[in-house]
């Protein structure tokens, strides 16, 4: 069996080059029209997708582009969520822009400290160290009841968007103004991430993924580049976590638990981590699939686990890999 690298597209690119950015923008355009046709229920499902989608864009800069697999990335979602919770319910800060800024700063700062230690390692050691940090944070959230509310979590109050107060019920707020706000945020962060991956910096990261030693010889500063990727991915994670927390109205320790990190990796591989838009699409499919399976049976973990097993064994390139496979086959293969 040939060796398959999870991070690089093994399927030859016979497809006309559909750039990942266009795939993402097309998806977002559809989502912009969705409120005209879809039920509030579907729109409410789209909100966690946007939170995860943003987090996954960042996660894949680390995983797909740089080749570092973090098994503790949920920590940054947790930081974003708890920042939103603490600011709204303890300090009375309601402006969503300030929440985002604080979440980005908080997760960025934490990631600089942990990143300095983590990015010295690669492969399984990187995964284990990030997992240890993630669980460190989780047990802090879980045990320090007075500060974090322990297993009860912390409530997240409705924020002001653009300094304006929004009346109406929770669903109306979430599916109306908050939906569009998050969508615009998603689009902006997607554009930014596209610029990052296409920049010389992004090329440095890819070079590091392919061959760190060679990259070092031609002058790539491996440590700094990896650290930068780690911090950027953490900032995206923090912002994604803030959206998730506002959506559910609650920040709870489960957000930072290691199985949640595992779900993030699941989403990335489901969509295909070798592509730009793949992980975001993976997040969408994951959210929809989980909701669908949960409505069918209480044993949804079994089904999701089974999907993951089948995916890893038969479709390691994820859904985007499947699409290019189909396309190649129709063109007589290559």
């Amino acid at each position, binding site marked *: *069996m040939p*060796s*398959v*690298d*999870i*991070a690089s597209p093994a399927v030859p690119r016979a497809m006309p080059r559909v750039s990942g950015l266009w795939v993402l923008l097309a998806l977002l355009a559809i989502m912009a029209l969705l409120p005209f046709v879809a039920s509030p229920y579907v729109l409410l499902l789209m909100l966690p997708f946007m939170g995860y989608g943003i987090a996954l864009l960042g996660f894949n800069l680390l*995983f797909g582009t740089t080749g570092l*697999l973090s*098994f503790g990335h949920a920590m940054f979602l947790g930081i974003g969520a708890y920042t939103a919770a603490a600011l709204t319910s303890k300090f009375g800060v309601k402006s969503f822009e300030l929440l985002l800024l604080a979440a980005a700063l908080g997760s960025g700062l934490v990631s600089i400290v942990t990143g300095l*230690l983590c990015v*010295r*390692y*690669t*492969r*399984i*050691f990187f*995964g*284990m*160290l990030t*997992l*240890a*940090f993630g*669980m*460190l944070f989780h*047990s*802090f959230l*879980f*045990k*320090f009841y007075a500060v974090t509310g322990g297993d009860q979590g912390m409530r997240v109050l409705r924020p002001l968007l653009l300094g304006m107060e929004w009346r109406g019920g929770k669903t109306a707020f979430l599916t109306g103004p908050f939906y569009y706000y998050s969508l615009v945020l998603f689009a902006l962060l997607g554009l930014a991430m596209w610029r990052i991956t296409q920049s010389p910096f992004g090329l440095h990261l890819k070079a590091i993924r392919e061959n760190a030693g060679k990259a070092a010889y031609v002058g790539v500063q491996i440590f700094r580049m990896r650290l930068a990727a780690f911090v950027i991915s953490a900032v995206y994670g923090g912002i994604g976590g803030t959206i998730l927390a506002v959506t559910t109205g609650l920040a709870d320790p489960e957000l930072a*638990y*290691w*199985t949640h990190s*595992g779900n993030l*990796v*699941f989403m990335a*591989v489901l969509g295909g981590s070798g592509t730009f838009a793949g992980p975001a699409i993976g997040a969408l499919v994951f959210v929809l699939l989980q909701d669908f399976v949960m409505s069918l049976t*209480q*044993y*949804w*973990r*079994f089904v*999701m*686990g*089974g*999907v*993951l*097993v089948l*995916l*890893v*064994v038969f479709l*390691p390139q994820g859904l985007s890999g499947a699409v290019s496979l189909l396309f190649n086959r129709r063109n007589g293969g290559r």
Partner: protein
Amino acid sequence: MTELVDVILGGTFHAAVLFLVAAGLQLVFGVQKLVNLACGSFYALGAYFGITAVGLALKLGLPPLLFFPVLILAGLAIGLVGLPIERVLRTIYRRDESYQLLLTFGFLLMFQDVFRYIWGATPRTMDNVYLVYGTANVLGVRVPTYNLLVIAASIAIAVGLGYFLERTKTGRIVRATAENRDMAEGLGVNASKIFALVFTVGCMLGTVGGALVVPSGAASLDMAVELVVESFAVVVIGGLGSMRGAIVGALIVGLMRAASISLMPEMEMLSVYLVVVLVLIVRPAGLFGKATA
């Protein structure tokens, strides 16, 4: 003084069980280079199955004094579930580690619901059967004799495992395969068989560990995911792939937890992760590990 003895005994008991799971993890990593996230599920599986097996044995009129061997046998028997799982894992041995982590993560998720389906969502306990062995007085502290039995069993298993790996012919072949799979195959070793054997033994270590812990505790759905991170901590502290590391790591984690529970309960797991982070900073390969890849 009694408090100290209490902490040491409690910590050692926990360490004895942790060692078994961590040893399974180490064995599988050492030979197959595979980090098995499902080790926690094997542990929980052993615990649940142990309850069922002992309950059945008592119902069939077995004297309660014999429940200890029944538990061990139950753990060993259910450990055979490792065989079919290894068949699936076989498809991805030559792939990137991320796939292996994910595949075993998938198994972990599936097992969660298997437990829920068979044994229900509420924690299961095994009444007070373990008190049939009475209690022992260790330096002024009364502990259930059962706990001492578990510690002894764990030591015996550690010695047996060491003997198997170092002294027997199969053990040598296992170590040769771990060192260099292609070379071993070139010399006529059937590596697939060795892998199946190693994974099943690793699985059994986990299930026996779970079976041994359950009489004095409870089997719950959370135990799998919680144990994964604890045994990861053990493995990271001790060094990936090292059996000696598993012993030392398990003792450190077990005692650390017992000490924090009696001194500062909030620090229970936090202290363990702090040690992990500290070890990784000072000795990235762990206390007994080889240099990092």
